[in-house]
């Protein structure tokens, strides 16, 4: 994977990476991080999301919060494509350490305007070393 090519950082824009390392619900960080991403999407920057450590729990399928009386915000990740946030990097090792596989994650897709609105997956499974390269290619890293 050629990170530098994938994250061009056109003139006047910065490469923003939102790092998600914490599980949802136990603390508010995941929810309020998502709020930053949704607002930030209006600024036309080059946005990527990284999920590793417990952050991978944010996007697992089948979340049902009825019993804890909290809002289930996991469906909102599926709206990210509408906000043109289409690069969600998920670390393979973080999944494996937690007994998860990519099949345990929600289907998060976007419609590619340049490809006749073809539906494409937003989630890109990367290795830990690829994740470190992705971090190194950013202008701003916000970690919640």
């Amino acid at each position, binding site marked *: 994977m050629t990170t530098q090519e994938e994250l061009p950082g056109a003139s006047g824009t910065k490469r923003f990476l939102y790092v998600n390392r914490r599980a949802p619900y136990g603390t508010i960080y995941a929810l309020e991080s998502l709020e930053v991403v949704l607002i930030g999407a209006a600024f036309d920057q080059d946005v990527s999301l990284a999920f590793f450590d417990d952050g991978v729990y944010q996007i697992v399928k089948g979340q049902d919060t009825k019993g804890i009386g909290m809002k289930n915000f996991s469906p909102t990740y599926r709206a990210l494509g509408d906000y043109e946030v289409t690069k969600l990097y998920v670390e393979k090792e973080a999944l494996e350490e937690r007994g998860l596989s990519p099949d345990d994650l929600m289907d998060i897709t976007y419609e590619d305007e340049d490809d006749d609105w073809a539906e494409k997956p937003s989630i890109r499974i990367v290795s830990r070393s690829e994740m*470190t390269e992705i971090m190194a*290619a950013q202008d701003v890293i916000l*970690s919640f």
Partner: protein
Amino acid sequence: MPILHTVNKSPFEKSTFKSCLDHARPGDAVLLIEDGVYAATKGTAAAGLIAARNGDLALYALGADLAARGISEKSVIEGISVVDYGGFVDLVAEHDVSQAWL
């Protein structure tokens, strides 16, 4: 582009420090602040983590946080440089990006 990583968690309570080291590239800098400075002390169960990367990462600990926790500079692992807040500012300025491991 080298990154400045800041870690503020004790390595005995959370795996944050280990995760930071696992994701740091050779040439990156790691600055231990707040409870993160406990990772800088000699002879702990976490010392091995540092030993494995001492040399290919630039390691720092914030002096004010060490002193507040009763850690003398003598007990700081060799290879870890002690900096003050001004040094923290310099490290941020010298690296293109800061990543806070919160």
